[in-house]
Every structure is written in structure tokens, then in C-alpha cells.
């Protein structure tokens, strides 16, 4: 690749990485479920876009497949599963329960981003010859931290499931910059695994809604040591 073309690819990857982080933060603090789902789709599109940029820049057909698989599973199939799992709850105009205030959540998210950046830095230094790693590795780990944070502080099953999927996308966002030749069997398995996991967890959410009358899992606290 020509240096000028590489610079463009590098800038584009940074652009999509910024949006990837932004949409992750959005899911952490989204007030309504429909908004969180919309951000989740955008999040998947940012991952797809980064994979396309890297596929072209690194001349890697494997990353092309990763982009296609990501788009078809995370931007289309999984959101459909999430819509089905949420049912009518998706359209309820109620606040999604937070353990923390949004301001405090944002503050912690900023600290988590910093920790992720510092944690992954030795790895970035240890792998020369992978230029996109400097963008994708920290971005991916930040998304993993944000996803885990979403699962921890949101008391709504649907948003917690999105948090899990954000973590999975974060792992792939990081890895496409260093692993651009995942074996076919691993690619196919990963493509099948994500929708299956989303489907089963979605089914669990529907059952929680049926039995508990809500998907607010924060309200389910019957199981304690002294009961």
C-alpha cells in the first residue's frame, strides 16, 4: 500500500474507532431501551467499517469475511433477536434503571478508558509491524471495559445483554488489527456462536419477563445467603 493510502486508511480507522467508543459510552448511559438498541446497531456498523478498512489496507480477504460476518450477525441478526426478546418492552418510554447517576457513570467510564489504555500499552509496544494495533487494541479493550460496566450498573436485562455483546465486539475490534487470518472453522464457529448465544439469552429474558412481569433484573434479589 502506498504511504498516502495508508495514511488515509489509518485516519479512517481512527475515525471509526472514535465512533465505536462513543457508541459504547452511549449504551452505558442510554435512558431508554430503544435508544440503546439503535446505538448497538451503530456500534456494530463501526466495527464492520473498521474491518473493511483493515481488509483493504492489509489486503486481507479474511478480514473481508470478518466484516461480512459482523455485518450480517451483529448489525442485522442480533438486533432482530434483541427486538424479539424485548417484545413490547422495547417501546416503553420509561427510564432504564441505573445503579449510578449518568454523570458518575461517565466519570467512571473515563477512568476505565484510561486504565484500558495503560493496560494494553505494553502489548502495543511488543508487536511491531501491526500499525493498526495502536488504534484497535486500546479501543477494543475500552469497549470490553464499557460492556462489563454496562452489565454491572444497568439493572435491565436487555441492556445487560447489549453490554455482553459490546464486550464481544470489543474483543473482535481489538483482534482484527493483529489476527487477520483466523482459521475458517473459527470464523464459522464465531459467526454461529454469537446469534445462538443472543437467542438463548434473549429467550431467558422473555421468560424473566413472563414470570416476573418485567425485564428489570435489578429487582430480582430473592436469592441471598440468609433466605
Amino acid at each position, binding site marked *: 500500500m502506498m504511504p498516502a493510502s495508508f495514511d488515509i486508511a489509518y485516519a479512517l480507522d481512527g475515525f471509526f474507532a472514535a465512533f465505536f467508543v462513543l457508541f459504547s459510552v452511549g449504551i452505558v448511559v442510554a435512558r431508554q431501551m430503544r435508544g440503546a438498541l439503535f446505538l448497538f446497531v451503530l456500534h456494530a456498523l463501526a466495527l464492520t467499517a473498521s474491518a473493511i478498512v483493515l481488509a483493504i489496507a492489509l489486503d486481507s480477504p479474511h478480514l473481508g469475511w470478518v466484516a461480512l460476518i459482523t455485518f450480517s450477525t451483529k448489525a442485522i441478526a442480533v438486533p432482530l433477536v434483541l427486538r424479539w426478546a424485548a417484545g413490547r418492552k422495547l417501546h416503553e418510554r420509561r427510564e432504564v434503571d441505573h445503579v449510578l447517576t449518568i454523570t458518575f457513570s461517565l466519570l467512571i467510564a473515563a477512568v476505565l478508558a484510561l486504565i484500558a489504555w495503560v*493496560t*494494553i500499552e*505494553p*502489548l502495543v*509496544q*511488543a*508487536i511491531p509491524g501491526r500499525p493498526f494495533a495502536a488504534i484497535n487494541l486500546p479501543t*477494543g*479493550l475500552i469497549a*470490553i471495559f464499557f*460492556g*462489563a460496566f454496562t*452489565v454491572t450498573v444497568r439493572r435491565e*436485562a436487555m441492556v*445487560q445483554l447489549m*453490554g*455482553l455483546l459490546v*464486550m*464481544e465486539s*470489543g*474483543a*473482535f475490534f*481489538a*483482534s482484527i488489527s*493483529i*489476527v487477520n*487470518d*483466523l*482459521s475458517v*472453522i*473459527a470464523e464459522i*464457529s*464465531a459467526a454461529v*456462536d454469537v446469534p*445462538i*448465544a443472543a437467542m*438463548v*439469552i434473549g*429467550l*431467558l429474558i422473555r*421468560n*424473566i419477563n413472563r*414470570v*416476573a412481569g418485567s425485564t428489570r*433484573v435489578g429487582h*430480582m*434479589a*430473592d*436469592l441471598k*445467603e*440468609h*433466605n
Partner: protein
Amino acid sequence: MLVLILVIPAVVALLTLASRRLAPWLTLAGMLIGLGLAIVNALRVAHGGIIHGAYGTLSLDPLGALYLLVVAFVGVTAALYGIGYLTARMAELTEDDPPPRYRQYFPLFNLFLLSIMAVPLASNLAVIWIAIELTTVFSAFLVAYDDGRQALEAAWKYVALTSMGAMIALLGVLILYYGINHQGQPITWQGLQQAAPHLPAAVLLIPFVLWLIGFGAKTGLVPLHTWLPDAHSQAPASVCAVLSGVEVSAALYMLLRIYPALVANPGIVNPEIWYLVAGLITVATSAFLLLQVHDYKRLFAYSTIEHMGIILAACGLGAGGHQLGTVYQLFAHAFTKSFCFYAAGLATLVFGTQKIAAVGGLLGRAPVVGWALLLGAIAIAGAPPFALFISEFEILRTGFAAGQYAATGVLTTLIVLAFVAIVYQAGRIVFGEPVVADGYQPPPLPKTSMVALAIAFVPVLVFGFYLPPPLMSLVHQAALILGGPT
């Protein structure tokens, strides 16, 4: 032939959808064939080393063969136990209780076992991660079998925490993928071991830390253990046996297998410290929780957390001599813990409750179950002449022999504390005047479950003083994979 071990439960899962009446027996037949195949392949591995199948996508080495054996054995006893136990539980239901997921149980049980068996069989590290992730996916509704509010709460906690862990571990897998591939090695355990000395320390250490957190959640390491007692208090005993006996060890298996690679890397100083600290914190927390537990299925769940901690701490002890004890502990924990849950499940049928304070006199009310629970508790606590005594003794012996007096002394104290707690709690259940709850009519104890209990007890007792030579050879070869002495 290796592929058959995975094909059979997949086929049986489909067949169980067709016939509700035959589903329990089809499951048992499938598990028996699986055990037969596991034994045949373990013998091949014991005599000839690593074997491959399905064009290299599957492989089995001594550590994998040993783990596969216990998975297959627990699969058979759990399938047999479940036949009568689930029927007896349904007979107890009142009109107000939601119908349990009996029809879904058998396909999911087969797929759950399939995914666990894929962990030691798959060659590719990414595929192994997928298998571990699928163990959660297929067992979520087994934990939620009762379909009540509490069962669903337990299932949700289980899914949320362990999936969160799996996603963290995924990044570790993919970084290792890069590292191994960069060294021109296949993405397998053997490839990792070959590549390890040449990798930059960060390429190995960061994935390990991600695994310790990620797979640690699935293993039940403190502070990520909270799902484990809840899931075990709600799931049927046959599911608890598999969850506790072999599923949590699937994630621990990953942490054990990366250990020799960490040791082989010159840039990583004292990797055993990570294992020792995580292990000791886990054992200490569980030992104190065991003292104040109020539910006897939770008691055995905390004991599982303790055992996972012991195995992890064992990696940090003994300066290279711990592996025999570590491998034997992993092996002995599987069948001993499944036996404990079988006894606990039958005790629930006898009493109609799991609350320790509300029960007593089990020896008087159901002597066989009472003795099973008492012996199971003594065995799982690590008393002689049972198998876990051998492994715990070996772990502590190598720790003291290596001069790690402080850490080994702390571990010994915690093991003794846990021993006292488990035996004390078991004593409250089995001794005293028989307690009869008002209006509760216990169902007759199911025969298949009693047979499963008897079969499960055989290795608990026998392997404490005798191990057949091929199995002994397999244990030594497995320890060698972890870098231990022959």
C-alpha cells in the same frame, strides 16, 4: 473415532426431541456409549500419547483424556440419576408451581455435555473458547429448570457473570492466536508451548490476566463466584453434579494449561504468584462462607469454590513439583462432588427443603441417603481414605518440601477450616432426631437415582487407595504436560 464422542450426544439431543417417553433412556444410552469411547481413547492415549481426529481439528493428549474420562463418567451417572429424580420432583409439585422444563431438559443436557466434552477434544484454542461459551448457553435453561422466579434469577446471574467472563477471555484467546501464529506454530496447546519461549512477555502475560479474570468467573474464583451458589441452589441435583463436577473445571482446565507456557517464557517472572494469590483468596473466602451457609446445596457449591481455589493455589506451590497433586485434585473433585450433589438431591426429596436449620436426623429417616451425604461430605472435605485426601496431601507435601512454609501453612489452615465447616454442617443434617415437616409427604426414593448414587461412590472410595495402572499412567503423563515430574 474422536469425532464420534461429539456426534453421539448431538444425535441423541435430536432424538430426545422426538420422544418424551424414551428421552431419559436415550440420553443414558448415549452417555454410556460416550463413556465407552472415552475409555477406549484414554487407553490409546495412555499407551501411545496424543491422538488426532477429524483432519486435525480434534486431538486428545493425556490431560485432555483424563478430563474427558471424568466428564463422560459424570455424564453417565447424572443421566441415570436424572431418570427417577426428575420424575420424583414432578410428583412433589403442587397446582401453584409452574411446570418444570422436563421436555427441554434432555436435549439441553446432551448439548451441555457435548460442549463440555469439546473442551478437551478441540485442537484450536478459539474453538475451545467457543465450546466453553456454549456450556453456558446450553445450561442456562437447565439451571432455570423449575421455571420459577428464583430459578430464573439464578440462571440470569449465571449467564450474565460467566458470559461477561467469557468475553474478557476472548480477547486473551485472540491475542494468543496472534502470538502463536506469528511464531509459525499451529493454534493448539502444543503450538502455544512451542511458541511460548519466543514470545514477548506482554503477548503471553496480558492474555493470561484476561483469562484469569474471564475464565476465573466461570471457575468461581472470588470475587466473581457469586453466581455459583445461586445456580446450584436452584438447578436440579443432576445438573449441579455436572456444573460443579466438570463444567467449572472446564474453565480451570484453561488456566492450568496456560501455566507451562508462562513458565517457559523467560520474560515472565514468578508466574506462580498469580495462581497462589488468586487461589488463596478463593479458598479463604469459601472456607469462611462454608461456616455460615444455610442451604446444603449451597454448602457443596461453596465447597466447589474452595476446591477450585486449592487447585489454583497448588499451581503456585511446590516450585515445579505440584502437578501430580493438581491433576489428581481436578480428577478426584469431579466424581466426589457429583456424588455429593446426588446425595443432596435425594435429601431434598426426603425433607422437601434445602434449609439446614429445618432438617435433621437424615440417618434415621433415610439411612442410605444419610450415609451417602455424610460420607460425601467427609470425602469432599479431604479426609482419608478418599481420593481427595491423596491429592490434598500431595499438594501440601510438595509445598512444604519446596520450602514454601508460609503459603503452604496458610493453605493447610484454610483446608482444615473448610473441613471442620463441611463436617459440622453435614452433622447437623444427618444426626439428631428425624425432622418431619408439617404436611410434607416425601416421595419414594427413585431406584435409578439410588443406583447412580452407588455407582458414583465407587471411584470416590476406590481411587483413594487404588488406581488402575493405565489410569495411573495417564495421571503421571497429564502431570508431565503441566511440567511435573514423571
